[in-house]
């Protein structure tokens, strides 16, 4: 189609929107935001007559590349260290994608502009595309990569594992609660606009550096749909801003959504990019450098800050605090170390860091070795079973952390841990902000105003509690992370596939039982609890006990 006919076609399909005369459509979802009805322009300007062939063409390229990768024996060159983390990533991501599709109708009745609904429907089907194309990529990995364990039980793993649970926020947050908080601010304004660049651009680059050029093909194709979604969010945001009474809620939601995305996405993607790569060229960007570019400069400075003049209250302090967490407090390193500590509760294999990795970390994050080096040497030493237990039970000066009740990542930056008794339970939070999210934001009133549509944090949010006092062999079997011989574990703290070097349920059987930190916390007297907190915030970095000398 010529440009002119595209414009004419787009103008024509505006005639499709009509207002009901006899019956209102069902209103399934609510919001505490208010919107004035106003003529709006559809920001997408997408006509299905050109959309479908365009997407089909993109598919041709993706599937052509997939065939090529198999014919060209790509898997003879992929790094297992990298591929193993894809077992986690690709178990998580199809759900957030499909949840974004499911989120679109939350906006139909709450944002009263039928011109925007066409774009939302296209986003819906884009997201069906993303979810199924990613399931398909994972299937291809399962079929062609040396170790299919972890891919083959992927969705069960994802659902029963605490890492999957952390990731699931990046899905359930889109589809529940206040419709605008969920489907607009959390999903579009923060998750898509800020964080998809790290997910779908930075990560694929790292995949390519590890011999996998299929992931980039698929994810760049996914990302090429993203700019449309960002336009959807922007249009809704501008409408929300035009009503002064929304500003307080926008401020609340940006703070919650920003912080939660930082906690969840930086934990996962940061770990994949820094600890899942074999590429240790000094000139390759670290996650911190990528973050500075994609999120700080492109999102914060270029996208958010200009919205200030429309009355948007930008969480400047939290942007800086997220950076502080990544740069000064080692957030990503602490998370990677925790994943590796708890390798036995997972469903992928985690490679040890070696001297070459140490050198790179020290170059990118000066002081890294003093904090984390010794621990990783211990991890390497304890990698294959040789009469000892997994590292979490051995004396390596690591205190098993408490879980953050809100973001469900453990409280790893120990000095930031806060506690509160909420809804009759003592809870630990990784940061003041996560406490605020639970205590203040997700409540039916906010700063004295009624917020009856705000969502609720629900569920069994500390994984360990489900297995309180269980033997580890039973824990691993219950989650189903066992290979087809009935005893070898899916997870391993090394990449050696020699069955004699692999950990089995027999090794787990000998370990001390799993104890839920939260159950123990709630059994404490008030005095003990205070002492516990005073000690906890003196721990770290790298999980060191409070008595250890600080690096």
């Amino acid at each position, binding site marked *: 189609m010529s440009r002119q006919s595209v414009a004419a076609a787009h103008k*024509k399909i505006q005639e499709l929107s009509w207002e009901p005369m006899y019956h209102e459509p069902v209103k399934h*979802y609510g919001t505490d935001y208010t919107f004035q009805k106003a003529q709006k322009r559809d920001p997408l300007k997408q006509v299905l007559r050109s959309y479908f062939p365009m997407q089909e063409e993109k598919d041709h390229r993706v599937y052509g590349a997939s065939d090529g990768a198999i014919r060209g024996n790509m898997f003879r060159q992929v790094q297992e260290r990298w591929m193993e983390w894809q077992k986690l990533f690709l178990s998580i991501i199809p759900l957030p994608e499909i949840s974004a599709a499911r989120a679109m109708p939350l906006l139909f009745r709450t944002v009263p502009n039928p011109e925007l609904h066409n774009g939302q429907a296209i986003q819906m089907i884009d997201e069906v595309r993303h979810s199924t*194309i990613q399931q398909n990529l994972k299937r291809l990995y399962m079929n062609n990569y040396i170790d299919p364990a972890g891919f083959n*039980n992927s969705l069960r793993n994802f659902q029963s594992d605490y890492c999957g649970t952390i990731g699931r926020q990046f899905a359930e947050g889109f589809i529940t*609660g206040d419709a605008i908080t969920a489907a607009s601010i959390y999903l579009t304004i923060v998750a898509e606009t800020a964080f998809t660049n790290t997910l779908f651009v930075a990560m694929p680059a790292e995949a390519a550096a590890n011999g996998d050029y299929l992931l980039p093909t698929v994810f760049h194709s996914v990302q090429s749909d993203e700019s449309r979604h960002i336009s959807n969010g922007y249009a809704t945001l501008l409408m929300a801003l035009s009503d002064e009474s929304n500003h307080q809620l926008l401020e609340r939601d940006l703070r919650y959504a920003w912080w939660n995305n930082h906690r969840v996405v930086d934990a996962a993607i940061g770990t994949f990019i820094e600890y899942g790569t074999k590429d240790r060229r000094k000139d390759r960007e670290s996650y911190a450098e990528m973050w500075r570019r994609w999120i700080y400069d492109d999102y914060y400075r270029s996208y958010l800050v200009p919205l200030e003049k429309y009355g948007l209250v930008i969480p400047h302090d939290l942007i800086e605090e997220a950076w502080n967490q990544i740069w000064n407090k080692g957030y990503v390193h602490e998370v990677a170390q925790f994943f590796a500590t708890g390798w036995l509760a997972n469903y992928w294999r985690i490679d040890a860091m070696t001297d070459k990795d140490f050198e790179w970390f020290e170059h990118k994050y000066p002081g890294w070795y003093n904090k984390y080096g010794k621990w990783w040497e211990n991890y390497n030493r304890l990698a294959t079973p040789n009469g000892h237990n997994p590292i979490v039970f051995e004396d390596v000066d690591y205190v098993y952390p408490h879980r953050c009740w809100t973001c469900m990542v453990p409280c790893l930056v120990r000095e930031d841990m806060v506690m509160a008794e909420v809804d009759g339970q003592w809870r630990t939070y990784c940061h003041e902000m996560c406490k605020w999210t639970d205590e203040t934001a997700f409540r039916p009133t906010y700063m004295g105003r009624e917020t009856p549509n705000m969502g609720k944090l629900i569920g069994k949010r500390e994984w360990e509690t489900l297995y309180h006092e269980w033997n580890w062999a039973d824990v691993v079997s219950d989650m189903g992370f066992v290979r087809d011989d009935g005893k070898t574990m899916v997870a391993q703290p090394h990449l050696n596939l020699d069955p004699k070097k692999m950990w089995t349920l027999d090794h787990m059987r000998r370990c001390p039982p799993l104890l839920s930190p939260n159950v123990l916390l709630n059994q404490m007297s008030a005095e003990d609890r205070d002492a516990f907190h005073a000690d906890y915030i003196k721990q770290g970095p790298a999980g060191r006990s409070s008595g250890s000398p600080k690096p």
Partner: protein
Amino acid sequence: MTDVQETVQERSFPKPVFTDAEAGAKEFPDSTARRYNYYEPAKRKQSHYEDVTVEVQPDPRHYLSQGWLYGFADGKGGYPLEWTALKAWGSDRPLPERGPGSGGKGYDWPAHGWHEFRDPNEEWELTLYRYNANVVRQMTQNIQVARQAKAFEQWNPNWIRFVEQHVGAWMHPEHGLGLYLFANANRRAPTNMHNNAISVNSMHKIRFAQDLALYNLTLSEEIDGFDGAAHVETWNSDPTWQGVRRTAEALTGIDDWCEAIFAANVIFEPLVGELFRSNLVQQAAAGNGDFVTPTVVGAGEYDYAQRDLRYTRAMFQLLTSDREFAEHNKSIMAQWLSNWVPQCLDAARTLQPLWSLPDSKPPRFEDGLDRAKNRFQGILSDLDLQVPEELAQ
């Protein structure tokens, strides 16, 4: 634009390394376990469609040990089964209780009958883009050929009015139902298999609405005096159309997602949609010198008859033959029938004056309605449902 003079920092590239991480390179536990093992396939072998669809949307009755994490203000998260009155076997089992020391196990897969549904069209991204891209390509070509052949010059004035107003008006129920009934329902069903099929159905309808709008645009460019805005007026105030409009709006007001799909695809489509499209437009066009409109309308007809009805039938057949709740479901569907059949028949009858508009007359309205009713009865019998007495009205 980057300044050409600027020194470009040379970036190194990672070197390929031989890792031998290919399937089959070693033997070890699970080295040959290359299939998704968390669900049971509907047939003997797992299909590609199932692999990319099943269990993506979790269920606390399966493996979701920590339960849903975010809820609405009423505390409900995820995809509550109560969002429809229909039930599949196992629906009444309590949610697995999890707490301190409970472990994570749920019921054995599939836990309840909803998870047994498979879309017989096996739609996922590859199939849905291929299908819809083919439809729009074919249609664009047909219209292009007709344009070159000056095919529209043969249309008599009455037929031109008929197409601009009435064929044009049909884009509106397609669009309205596509968005506010089908796209809306893609948030409501308890499995990914349902919701994906429903979202594909939604896109068929929105695409077909746009096909009609863009065809209308072409006609206003090709035919002198063709009024491209007439369809809006017709939809808004032509009394002939107000029955369809009232019914379409009522359909978008349905709260229960199963009722919405049932009322739209089992009742409204055969009694009103096919009546208008197949038993009026498709029958009348040729006699009035129009061989183009049937290719446009035919595409939408094919979407419904060959694909959307197909998954709908499979979905409700499971529920009317459910091992635990077949009778419960049938009695609820019978209520839906007695509520919606009269409204749809009313919409159909209100359309009757259209049959006398073209110069060359289509077969009689009553004959067309009989055919539509027969078709509807056939669908009901496939679903093992009784024909409601309201159909005789």
